[in-house]
């Protein structure tokens, strides 16, 4: 009988976030991080962007993307701190900070996304 464990679930969230980050982030970074601010490409008009973001489907999708990417970060960063910096002693604290941060971020995402819908 398999015990109910959170580790596999965290790993699944991490993986899902990893896939989404790999597929969606490169283009988003290029567009919103560089091309639009630097004027390589004319930024979309506010109305257009508002319309796109305000569409419930987009908002829902973005919520998923943000939440999972944060889960991805939380999981990876937690191990990076354990292994990379050998912060074994403060295991509990790191866990709380990482996953807590991800949960908090997800809540904030929901609130912010709700403001545009």
């Amino acid at each position: 009988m398999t015990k109910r464990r959170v580790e596999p679930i965290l790993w699944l969230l991490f993986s899902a976030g990893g896939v989404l980050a790999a597929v969606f982030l490169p283009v988003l970074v290029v567009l919103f991080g560089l091309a639009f601010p630097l004027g390589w490409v004319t930024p979309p008009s506010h109305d257009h962007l508002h319309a796109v973001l305000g569409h419930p489907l987009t908002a829902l999708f973005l919520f998923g993307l943000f939440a999972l990417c944060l889960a991805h970060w939380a999981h990876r960063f937690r191990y990076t701190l354990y292994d990379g910096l050998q912060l074994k002693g403060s295991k509990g604290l790191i866990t709380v900070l990482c996953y807590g941060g991800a949960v908090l971020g997800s809540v904030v995402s929901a609130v912010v996304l709700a403001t545009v819908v």
Partner: protein
Amino acid sequence: MSETEVQPRAYRRPVSTWWWLEKRSYFVFAMRELSSVFVAWFVVFLLMLTYAVGRGDDQYQSFLDWAATPWVVVLNLVTLVFVVLHMVTWFNLTPQATVVRLRGQRVPAWAIIASQYVGLAVVSAFVIWLVTR
């Protein structure tokens, strides 16, 4: 059951905090893991963008201006590098982590990797179309 006992006198080489600098492959690994920080940063960045858009055109424009300030640009350049590193390593590892079968045949690794890049291209094209339409 094994009867070997660990010798108290055995020498244990301590692991240095900087172990990930000892080898190129370890370093790449450490950078790959570090990419997650930039993933998180960009989520924050996108949230700020969304927030600005929700607050009206003025806020949106000033967000764009802020995003054009040198340190933000540099940060996002670095973010791009790390996100690409994440993408490449993730795609490369996928065939190792999963076995995909088509009509009983194991799909070769290169095909899995290639199909991910096709997916990437489609998604990117769609996103560009959606926001610049």
